[in-house]
């Protein structure tokens, strides 16, 4: 299909690169280190030197010691978060696609909702999965996304609320549309 890759097109080269990380992300989205060189510009200067489109907001979430919450409290709350997260069967889940020679791995926590996830999967595997509908599933699409849940059952992606999906998804499988018919039909 896309064998005739145009090598002068950066995008395609990147798409076939074997690397850790999701297609569509690049280095600039790495997490900022927690030590941020302090910003000595006054707030007025900041206002005049950038408008909202140009200036990415400073990584304020990771300024040292801000917001002023004591370490003890922060640790306790983080642990509580982790505890509710620890039921998650791995945030990194394997993704297989019928006919693909090897599997991929994605971090489903990175996505905020189903459309984001589906777009990423479509990009990663160069397939089209269409739009989810409750009645028809992904009927009509070439491929359909499915997942194995905590109980070991294979489910259609999209049926349950996103948060519930994130905590119960153990692995993903992009099935051929024809095979997925059984899952999608009501």
């Amino acid at each position, binding site marked *: 299909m896309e064998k005739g890759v145009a090598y002068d097109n950066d995008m395609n080269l990147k798409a076939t690169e074997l690397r850790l990380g999701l297609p569509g992300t690049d280095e600039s989205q790495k997490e900022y280190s927690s030590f941020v060189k302090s910003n*000595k*510009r006054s707030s007025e200067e900041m206002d005049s030197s950038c408008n909202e489109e140009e200036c990415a907001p400073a990584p304020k979430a990771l300024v040292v*010691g801000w*917001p*002023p*919450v004591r*370490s*003890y*409290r922060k640790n306790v709350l983080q642990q509580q978060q982790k505890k509710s997260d620890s039921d998650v069967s791995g945030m990194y889940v394997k993704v297989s696609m019928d006919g693909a020679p090897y599997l991929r791995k994605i971090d489903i926590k990175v996505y905020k909702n189903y459309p984001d996830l589906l777009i990423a999967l479509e990009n990663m595997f160069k397939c089209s999965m269409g739009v989810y509908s409750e009645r028809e599933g992904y009927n009509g699409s070439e491929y359909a996304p499915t997942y194995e849940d905590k109980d070991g059952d294979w489910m259609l992606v999209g049926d349950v609320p996103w948060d519930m999906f994130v905590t119960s998804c153990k692995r993903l499988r992009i099935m051929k549309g024809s095979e997925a018919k059984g899952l999608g039909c009501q």
Partner: protein
Amino acid sequence: MDPKLKKTKDSSSNSANSPDSTHSSFLFPDEVLERVLSLLHSHKDRSSVSLVCKDWYNAERWTRTKLFIGNCYSVSPEIVARRFPRIKSVTLKGKPRFSDFNLVPQYWGADVHSWLVMFAKVYPFLEELRLKRMTLSDESLKFLATSFPGFKALSLLSCDGFSTDGLKAIATHCKNLTELDIQENGIDDFGGGWLSCFSENCSSLEVLNFASLSSDVSFDALEKLVRRCKSLRILKVNKSISLDQLQQLLVQAPQLIELGTGSFQQELTPRQYEDLETAFSNCKNLQTLSGLWEATSLHLPVLYAACASLTFLNLSYATLRSDELAKLVAHSPNLRRLWVLDTVEDKGLETVGSSCPLLEELRVYPADPFELDLHHGVTEAGFLAVSHGCRKLHYVLYFCRQMTNAAVATIVQNCPDFTHFRLCIMNPGEPDYLTNEPMDEAFGAVVKTCTNLQRLAVSGLLTDLTFEYIGRYAKNLETLSVAFAGSSDRGMQCVLQGCPKLRKLEIRDSPFGNAALLSGVEKYETMRSLWMSACNVTMSACRLLAKDMPRLNVEVMRDEGSDDRQADKVYVYRSVAGPRRDAPPFVLTL
């Protein structure tokens, strides 16, 4: 006046009446003066008394039994030992407050050991030690435990450097222990075995707080301890204690005034649930409730019976929703103090406004401080709602992601008696989200309306105008915290010039420079301390300050890789002890 009373112990019977006597004819004998002064407890009063005259200074120093040292480096153990011969209780505070937020490197100092060595020599009958933001090792704890036979009360808040091994020593050796209060410390938890070190004869405990320790303790040891300590009034257990274990403890100690529960989540049989409910309803004296980790609507109802008498409810570790909070506060009409997480949202705060008319203190902590999503947490609406219903509010700590000038103005109209106003808009430099203007008018309203304001923490987009307001109106202000605020030196200058009662000023990431720093040259000796980090201060200005003011300690810490001329972190404090002798290499004393 009876002439006999005019005599002092030292003077002969005639000298007091002679017209040439250097003593005032209204002299009290020492015994009377000392008797009177021994009734004075406030350290501020005692300070005033000691300044009256030499005799009063002496009488005061002989009668002082409680020592309060707000900055451990402002004085030395030797000086203290010389002045006060009869100390039974010591409170010592160490690191600057911003160390709570990781702005002070480890091994900065504030080690208590040299103080303990002095105490062992001069105050062998020491009974109480309360430390805040101090460093202490297990060796120090062992030393403490074995050097003071009458030792009764140990309270450690935000301290570091020790482990549960040190606690073992305390439990083992302090036979008359009445209080062990371990709060929010950075310690190594090697297990709960320390609790089992209390001897079976120990029955004197009145206060036991180990809520912030994580390891399991022996429930059997704890239960026996609680059973034999009939005077136990404050018990705060840790997460390892389950609900049914809690029930067993409550049955042994229905007299508790303050209770910190363990984990509030467990599958209970109906019988267990009932027993728990009964146990709570039998606690007729309960005024404070905390802990409640992982509490959900399933188990909260067991508390309802006990809520009627509650004056302080600390839910700051319970991720409650608005409906869960609503039900709790509906049963707690006598609340004076309430601490919650912002998971309760504005809706939850509305119910606080309608259910707790006597509320005086509200703290709303962020459940997820690094979450930038505006759809979580509380907004100005919640604060407004509380201010409408709780007119007696005078202490607030409020973490939010959006605020408006108008809301704050209304809030202080509703509650003009604020003494402590700490507003933290979590995104630095965030303007009024409706008008996009700076939040100057908000804090202007606060200082204009709340004439009794003692403590203020500002946030949001702020220009020098905020500080002009503060300098002009905040005449009772003692503590000011500033972050990411101000436009120029003028801001800080206004505060230094205008706030006569200012004692503690802590500033970070604000554009105040040398002119601002030096404008306070005469002010700093009247204050406990000044902290400035990530501002525009240079080493030369700090050196100038140090040179001009020998009774100030001017300390600088530099950040990695920063310019040699920049003074990244400046800590200035008055001291009669001279420069620190224990400063680590990264603390430059100028």
